[in-house]
């Protein structure tokens, strides 16, 4: 289980970074979403990966359950990244309409001015 999740996180980050290095706006958004999800999965997994353990327990806690705190953190992080991604998409949409291009290589006028 740990190995699968680790590979999954690596996959998210790898493809995310690859997308970020492409030139189109859409791939930029995809890249940001992917590395964001990779980070969420990473934080989620630090709580420990346990399966088939009930969420509600009796008076005595079972010895091995996943730590719920990272799950709460991930919830917060997901909500934040959701908002940020929506903002990114709308900003890129506006930029694309204004600049009449969705090529990141065209976005170089503020560097040289």
């Amino acid at each position, binding site marked *: 289980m740990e190995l699968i999740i680790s590979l999954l996180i690596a996959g998210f980050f790898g493809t995310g970074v690859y997308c970020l290095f492409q030139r189109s706006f859409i791939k930029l958004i995809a890249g940001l979403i992917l590395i964001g999800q990779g980070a969420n999965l990473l934080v989620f997994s*630090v709580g420990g990966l346990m399966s088939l353990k009930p969420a509600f327990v009796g008076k005595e806690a079972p010895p091995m359950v996943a730590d719920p705190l990272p799950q709460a953190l991930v919830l917060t992080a997901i909500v934040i990244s959701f908002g940020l991604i929506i*903002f990114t998409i709308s900003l890129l949409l506006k*930029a694309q309409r204004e600049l009449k291009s969705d090529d990141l290589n065209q*976005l170089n006028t*503020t560097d040289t001015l």
Partner: protein
Amino acid sequence: MNLLYLPIILPFVTAVACLEFTRWSKATPVIGTIGAVAQLIGAIYLLDEVLVKELIVGHTGGWAAPVGISFVADKLAVAMVVITAIISVVINLYGWAQLDSALIKKHYFALVHFLLMGVNGAFLTGDLFNLYVWFEVMLIASFVLMTIGGTKAQLEGGVKYLVINLVASVLFLCSVGLIYGKVGTLNMADISYHLRDSVDAHLVNSSGILLLIAFGIKAGLFPFFFWLPASYHTLTPTTLALFAGLLTKVGVYALLRTYTLIFESQFELIQPILIWIAGLTMAVGVMGAASHYNIKKILSFHIISQIGYIMMGIAIATPLAIAGAVFYTLHHIIVKTNLFLIDGMIAKHYGTSDLKKLGGLYKWSPIFALLFFIPAFSLGGIPPLSGFWAKLSLIQAGVEANHYFLVATAGVVGIFTLFSMTKIWAEAFWKKPDPETPKFKLPSLREMTPALILASLTLLIGLNGDALFEFSKSTSNQLLSPEAYVKAVLNK
């Protein structure tokens, strides 16, 4: 109620009040300014209390640390909160005088106060994940403020700023997660407590480097600074002054906090990296400044080289060096904001900050020239202005700790800083203007008041540097003995 939460609650209340008055958008600058003044009063009360009690700790919801989120006001945090409140007052006044009504209608002042809430929250929190949340609050407000004008250049700069900051946030989140996985707590005092006696403390170094990169991107350190000169110069002057003064310094604050508190036991390992980063940040920043001919660009690059100076203090990490870094940060926020305010007034009059198109400002308005002279040559480090004392203490700390290479870099960078400030002075103020260039009219007193406030603060620090330096020294002593911090937060 604990005074500690005032610097977070007041901007929030002000922002909501500004949103309430959307229909009478003319009222929002007034509300914003009143809110900022209230924030300043609250911050000074808090400072007063911290000077007596050394540390104030608040446990949200009554949950004691490390279960609940704690808020901690130590001397560094409270100094940053006070300086933020000063900048807040100045920016609100300046925005009131300068902004056109179209921007004000787009909730400009509400956004400024949301941003300030995030900044103050980041300064006061004692919890690593909470720090992440405050960073996001600050970021989302800054994204909107950055692109609110909607011009082509702003959108383009905004895209760069947004993408690099989202990547930094992701790295920050990963680091927080990994630290939790290794230490089992997110309360910074508790992490410090657990790591101090642990034999495996070196395992957090990977997270430490991730944090260094995340905060380094936000602070504009070498080699992560490229977004800053590519986006800042597109901003409206009011926003630009606010960002230049505060935002990068939040990153610096976070570095100072984490490296003196959490990674304290591992500092020797990371010190060489910090020293290289400090030197290169200084040098590259000032070279960028020397090569440009636009006031906004020159000043943006100067932010980077000044951050390098502050990093030099953090990297050397002796009591004197940290005191110098704290002093430098406080001085730098005031001076940098002021320079951008003055540039804003020039740009508003001429519609450009290009040095080649400017000239003769000294001839037309010696008072305005004097107003520029004070912060500009304070930044350059001319005695007796505040920048001289800041640089002197850092260089002295470097010599005492035998970091001669860094000291030499700082010296050379200081000369170049002076050179590029002189360039602005010679081109915009002294040069004989083109015959067609219109005459410069002194801005109204209302527009000048913010710059006058900051210039008098610079003079006050310069002539009366001892008091602030004593304060910086006691701040640095507090930072370098985190046991008291840990004890106050955890009650053990």
